[in-house]
């Protein structure tokens, strides 16, 4: 009886026209997936592989996706995990304890005379962000480019909200500091 009446607790849409629904809900975020993968792996080919892998994974586990939830955040979490796995496999992942979350964020706030906004350009910013530790890069991309809320970022990265906040402000200040150093050195 139970088998006859009850379906597995999966959303109805997964069974009916699964692929169409998947393409409609998840596929629009291929760019977001690629952008994140590109920033995290820093390589075009890696990013492409990761996006393909992530979308296949997403398709396979689409049953766990709750309708009404943010498909972009859901996909980005998968992308991020794929990136982590790949970097780990390649031995490229920086150790997680590299960042000391307890030290207060410093940086430009304390020496604002180094601010050189007019010298900032896309090339510099891109290089500086790519040189940041992975933990900073992921919060920065999710916040500045995807404009996700702290809460959504916390869910994607599976870290507490407070950590998102501190990583983001540390990451930004670290980035600002590096930019200023680069610009100052260029002037010498």
């Amino acid at each position, binding site marked *: 009886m*139970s088998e006859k*009446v009850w379906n597995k607790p999966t959303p109805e849409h997964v069974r009916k026209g699964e692929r169409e629904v998947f393409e409609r809900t998840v596929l629009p975020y291929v760019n977001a*997936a690629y952008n994140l993968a590109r920033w995290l792996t820093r390589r075009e080919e890696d990013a492409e592989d990761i*996006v393909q892998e992530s979308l296949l994974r997403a398709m396979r586990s689409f049953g766990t996706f709750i*309708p009404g939830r943010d498909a972009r955040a859901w996909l980005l979490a998968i992308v991020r995990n794929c990136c982590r796995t790949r970097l780990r496999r390649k031995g490229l992942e920086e150790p997680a304890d590299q960042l000391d979350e307890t030290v207060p964020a410093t940086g430009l706030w304390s020496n604002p005379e180094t601010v050189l906004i007019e010298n*900032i350009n896309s090339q510099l910013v891109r290089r500086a962000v790519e040189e940041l530790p992975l933990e900073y890069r992921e919060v920065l991309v999710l916040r500045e480019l995807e404009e996700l809320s*702290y809460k959504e970022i916390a869910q994607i990265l599976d870290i507490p909200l407070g950590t998102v*906040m501190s990583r983001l402000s540390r990451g930004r200040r670290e980035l600002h500091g590096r930019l200023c150093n680069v610009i100052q050195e260029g002037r010498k």
Partner: protein
Amino acid sequence: MSCDRIQDSLDAYLDRELDVLSARDFERHLNDCDACRVAFERYRDLQASVKTQLPYFQAPESLVRKIRTQLGSSERRGEPSTIAWRAWAVAASLVICLAFGTLLFRSALRPSSTELIADQVVSSHIRSLMANHLVDVPSSDQHTVKPWFNGKLDFAPPIRDLSPEGFPLIGGRLDYVDARAVAALVYKRRQHPINLFLWPASDVDSKPSALVIRGYHVIHGIQSHTAYWAISDLNADELKQFVQDFFYQSRERSDRSADYTTRTTVHSNFIAAKRGNAHNHGSQSPQMPVRPLIRESRLPLPAPCAA
């Protein structure tokens, strides 16, 4: 707020992630403290400038195409080489469009409306608990609750006394879901309220599907032309039990009896009339009691389902 705290909440303030009170404190401090204000403005401008210079990498076209192929999408790959081929492709896609267009469209529409309804149902449930507006008609008597809906809805919702099964009726409420007025019946299991939303459905019956949304268990389906959505913080098994008791206990009987179906909803009445169903008495009010069911003949309770 001190100068140190300003530094700490700077980013949260810029990202509009501070709560209202803290944001006000933040602004008040900036008004009072010149040093912080200058530093804040500089940081804000720098941050904005960095943000605008941060490139967003677009996925290459080739990648998107590869993914579509991978997912088995029906997108055309490559150019047909001859005009004949091209004509054939056009003709074929026209035929396919005509043949499957409607089907695809319908199957594509359904989930999105399911998602939408799911969200509304969960919100309604939460609101009913939050605003202390669980019921409009508080009564454990189905014969009080049912007539209360007269004149408020364009259908008579089925109501069952499930207190023997351990789901006492608390009352009923008018609610608004999927752009229509619906009946919300409230039952209880121990301390867990269950909202059961009901409205007429023109679709054929569909098996119950279980979802978990924002921590609430939701079961929905269509039975005897009534769309139902049950939601509660109750565990999944007991909610399933509830739906089972409400709808499926007398499934066999309702399937056999044309009379029963014609009485349940306006829609079924209409459908039966169109079919020229001999059992259908067109003059019968759709508001007849929905449950001419004999308790003694109830089917044995189903085994609890594996979640």
